[in-house]
């Protein structure tokens, strides 16, 4: 079950420990990615990409806080994926655009959830890190502060501002729907 064929700073010792690292943290990474992307395929991509990168090259400061590193990487990569998959407006032309086809496709998703994911994608990565730790992983302010290397006060203030920002974004993003 060795995966030590991949050169790494840790050398041969990496293989078994790497699997253990994966088993210890894959849930955190996957759940985080799923909460940000709302898509299990994207979440799996995030999980694979992050650990694949570790297989190839272990960052010098990784051992200081592996969990924190993996969590931040999960948030950042998930945000990148969400932001990059949105449809772009071409410079001109715009000939390649969708036209009405199947209304069911547009209503299949939960509009509130979609609006929420959109709003989260517009937050700063730090705010998303704190938000997901709080709401998805049920971390207390103190636990978040410890994991992210900051103070409880900073976490509390950031959470407060993030909620306010989310409220503002959601008021624009979530359309009125029939009750």
């Amino acid at each position, binding site marked *: 079950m060795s995966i030590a064929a991949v050169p790494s700073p840790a050398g041969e010792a990496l293989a078994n420990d790497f699997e253990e690292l994966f088993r210890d943290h894959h849930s955190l990474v996957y759940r985080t990615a799923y909460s940000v992307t709302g898509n299990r395929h994207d979440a799996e991509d995030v999980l694979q990409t992050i650990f694949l990168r570790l297989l190839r090259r272990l960052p010098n400061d990784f051992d200081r806080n592996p969990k924190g*590193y993996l969590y931040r990487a999960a948030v950042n990569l998930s945000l990148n994926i969400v932001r990059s998959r949105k449809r772009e407006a071409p410079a001109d032309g715009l000939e390649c655009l969708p036209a009405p086809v199947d209304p069911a496709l547009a209503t299949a998703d939960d509009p509130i959830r979609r609006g929420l994911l959109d709003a989260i994608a517009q937050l700063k990565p730090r705010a998303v890190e704190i938000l997901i730790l709080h709401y998805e992983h049920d971390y207390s302010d103190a636990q978040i502060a410890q994991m992210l290397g900051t103070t409880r006060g900073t976490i509390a203030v950031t959470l407060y501002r993030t909620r306010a920002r989310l409220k503002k974004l959601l008021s624009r993003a979530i359309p009125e729907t029939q009750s």
Partner: protein
Amino acid sequence: MKPDLNDIDELLEQHLPSASAQQVENAGMRVLHRLRSHDGSEATEFEGHLDAIEVPVRTWRRTVMTWAAAAAAVAIAIGVAVLWRPANHVALVTAVDATLSRDVDGKTETLPQGSDLETGQPVRTTGDAGAVLQLADGSSVEMRSRSELAVEKEVDGLGIRLHQGSIIVHAAKQRNGHLYVKTRDVTVSVVGTVFLVNAEKEGSRVGVIEGEVRVREGDKKETSLKPGQQVSTNASLVTRPLKEEIAWSRNNDALVRILDTFTRGMAQTAGPLAPVRDQGTGAGGQSAGAVATPQFEEASIRACDPDNVPEAPAGARGGGANSLQMTPGRLHALCLTLATIVRHAYGYGPANLDFLNPGGRGPGLQLSNVYGLGVEDGKRVRGGPDWVRSDHYTIDAVAADAADAASMMGPMVRALLEKRFQLKVHIETEQLPAWNLTIASSGLKIKPVKTDAVDSSGFVHTTGRDGGACELQPTVGRGQPVIVRPAQPGERQPSPPSTPGQPVTILFRHFADVRRGEKPTCGMSMQRNGPNQVLVAGGTTLEALARSLASPLGGVVVTDKTGNTDKFNIVLEFVRDENTPGPSFLLQRPDQPDQPSDVPRGQTIFTALEEQLGLKLEPARAPRDFIVIDRVERPTAN
């Protein structure tokens, strides 16, 4: 009704996506398997994201104890535990959905999760569900219900003896040994792959999902199988697509996804199953190595009346002539020239957006959307008679199953064209005139801007690869036409409509307002000012500018050689003349439908770039691929 935004906590609790434990477990297993199989050299489809990961450097310190050492000190995970089992233990039961049992001293013993299996000890699943074993080499074996196997030590690795039923094997990368799966009549050897083995009274069947396996029947020659291919030892076994064969798996979704990744453009099976004994000799059926080209089951090709070419619906681009729509297993192309169809069948994007995509290859068409594909005019397709570029055809095609967009608008359309138009083509590469965008000797005349200098209201502003391109809100989803126009003074980006099918309006700040000091809309638009064209960009990079200049310059390649990665707000006005033969579709305000006649002719694009922006276009050459038609005939009758 809008949710109660005053209770954000409640809203997050209810609507924030949360993965189930089963989902996490399954994803973890799949990814771990792929990581084990990774040899460190191959690129992955996700590699593009790697560079984008930005992990802040941490400032905290703690006692130096490597994670590796720490990890070794804590509870040992299952995978590691396998390594430390006694020598005669070859596998561990990691999941049991039903009953897994073995016979010990004439008695049946039920095996719970976590049980060890000794070499040569048969185990079987009963009931309606299966079980998962992890082998000592890291491979995992998923057993279907009513299956029986034994794991044995081999001289050079491990062997699974499948007595009956079906298994799906996720074979770990074999560093020093091999993994074998043996049935009554075949031996399968692997080095790191995912595959199915089925043992029945009538014979055995092997199908590959990922990687490659070698199958040997008795003393006969080995046969290699690739993803999507199956073989059996008895031609009388029922022929079913591999996707159906693996539908029982607890990881069916992931397996199908892997299978699709590897078999895109190939048939799901290698056609009628061929007995292994017949392979290599060519007798008795199709060789397992042969891959049938996927084809539409039915197709209608009709010439369009040149005097009654359908127009696109009001307010939407796409839907009239030159448009295409695909739904699972169905393709509808409305009044396209053969050259345009060929262009897309060989992987190029819409002709009018050729310049936007590196190499002309777009992101690929998706199911359900209606696309306006433009008209191929020699940018990518050469050769053949004139009617290839003048006559229009409507194609309706239906596949036997729910084929995806990539398969249909790829190998399936190519097969259709080869059959009905007798089409034969080859690809040629030429070095063609191009431009390099450089900084003029006078120096750059524009200054970098920050994000807050750009109006991105109504958009999700990206810092992605296109450097400043705007992204639409996700509420602008499928099924909504898009109207783009310059904004009236002070006009704000309207909220996207909530009703599916209602057009979405995207406003770009008018160049006159930008010149007066208003923030330009993020992204880039081409606007009209009398005889002139005005490029208005908000927060764009010079690389994105270079690609956009390709449009007015007639679709030639423009490469950014400035070495500058900053973002800029740009207003560039130049006259439309012989230097700028590109598409003339320019945005103009609805209240100014006619071109003002009193606007003087502006500078040429070359002079404008240098004097307005401090940039210069220098002649260069760049490679370009062409599809050359060697042979084509008018379509045969439906």
